[in-house]
């Protein structure tokens, strides 16, 4: 698949590709099949994700997926972040196209450029839909989200 404009925007303008100041959780995931790795940092404050960032070595799918994750969980509680994660997994694994509304019931985040409204969120998430036809590349896109699962589980 040639990355769509939405994926390329995430890939080329990955502004969360950094170690955030005062992060409170750090998780690393490795794809042993190709050597790609993603480290995800979250800063939790008052029960909400206030900042997110990542460091990664990987392909455009790995990086754009990590960037989307960071942009889309800001301002959310761990439970709400889990909903976004479920939405993402449904997109790459499922058969029906899930409703973006299902994934954005959390607190709206006011900082610019972060996705909190369904309309903003949907096209970036849906850019990962072609992965349903490319099972060999699925793990590229889910690597960052494996970190989120661990972070959420750890509270």
């Amino acid at each position, binding site marked *: *698949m*040639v*990355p769509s404009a939405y994926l*390329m925007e995430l890939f080329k303008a990955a502004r969360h590709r950094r170690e955030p100041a005062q992060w409170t959780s750090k998780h690393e995931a490795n794809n042993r*099949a*190709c*050597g*790609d790795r993603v480290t995800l940092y979250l800063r939790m404050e008052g029960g909400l994700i206030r900042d997110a960032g990542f460091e990664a*070595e*990987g*392909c*455009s*799918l*790995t990086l754009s997926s990590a960037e989307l994750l960071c942009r889309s969980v800001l301002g959310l509680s761990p439970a709400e972040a889990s909903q976004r994660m479920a939405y993402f997994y449904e997109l790459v694994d499922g058969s029906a196209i899930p409703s973006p509304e299902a994934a954005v019931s959390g607190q709206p985040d006011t900082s610019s450029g972060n996705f909190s409204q369904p309309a903003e969120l949907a096209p970036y998430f849906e850019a990962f839909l072609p992965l349903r036809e490319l099972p060999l*590349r699925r793990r*590229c896109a889910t690597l960052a989200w494996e970190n989120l699962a661990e972070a959420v589980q750890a509270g």
Partner: protein
Amino acid sequence: MPLRTIPESIYKDFPILASTMRRKPFVYLDSAATSLTPEPVLEAMNAYYREYGVNIHRGVYEFSERASRLFEDVRSKVIDYLGLGQAGSNAGTLPTKNHPNPRQEIIFTRGSTEASNLIAYSWGRTQLQAGDEILTTELEHHSTLVPWHPVAQKTGASFRFVPMDAQGQYSLEDFLGCITPKTRLAVFSGMSNVTGFTPPIKQMLAAARERGIVTVVDGAQLVSHNPVSISDLEPDFLYFSAHKMLGPTGVGVLYGRRALLEEMEPFLYGGDMIHQVHRDWSSYHPLPEKFEAGTPNIAGVLGFGAAIDYLNAIGMPAIRRHETELLAYALDSLSAVPEFRGLGPSDPAKQGGILSFNLQGIHSHDVGAVLDTQGVAVRTGVHCAQPAMERMGISGTVRASMYFYNREADIDALVLAIKNALKVFA
């Protein structure tokens, strides 16, 4: 000027080459992973199932005798192909001084991986001991390296790795420099599946032989793309897979020196390999049946026989020459792409038809994905050789690998697709 080594008539035998992938003409540059299968190989396998598909070595009826004879004929073809019989002999039946009974030295396996495991299990676990050194390289395919890990753990033997340069090359001197009085075993590939690099194995094998070091050659890429003569090289073990040389998957060959095979325990036990079976003990058939337990992949072996016939009709020297010319053409075409970073010798004299590379600033999977959309099939990633990637400090490569059925137009399509990938990720 178009390359003329390979006759045009072969292309009708590979109808897949006229098909499309992602709605583009299919360009296959992944033969190092597995080769395409020509019609005569499919016909041989179909004919077996359709006309006389019965078991071998056991029936007392005509069809079983026919299947058994044709199956054993393939063993003779392998003997001839490997130069194990006397030169000019018909179907490898004339023995040579070093190989008085070549039939006993050719074992059919499920592939290179099983052959490698057979050696490690049946020879390594009983012959190696604490203090022994296994000499190998970081360039090896996992199927060649990994079976020796548990052997080392179990026996207390240790590894020594031949140093390589940044391009994954090493010399005879590098190899010799690693031999110590403790070296018992040397394991190496005759042609790297990562870079196509062909080390000086003839001299390496001679040096090891002089010092009484047992040698194992991974021939998966070497034997499928080059003329190889066991009588000339005289390794102790050499293995390869049918599916990389026009044959079906699930068939491979282990060559082993008879004296070593004789002293080894069987690897798999069961039917076909036994001589006598009693309630609480059994005895085994002589070679090669000792290592061929159970019903083999009969159709696969017969297909492999047709593959050997096909390769012989073209001639391995002609195949090697064609791939050399095609690789030179590819290196020349890609020299005009500034982002191209070749890995390996970048010299057709020192490598087979494998071109491993990266494009500056673009991950190999991304390149592969764009190539896929253009109908160009290549392999991306670590190529079952993680230590090689670690040694060279990269996460993976794009690997375009050729066979005699590739043409300059395939290289042109590759270069065009590479330029597209550069545009997408610019």
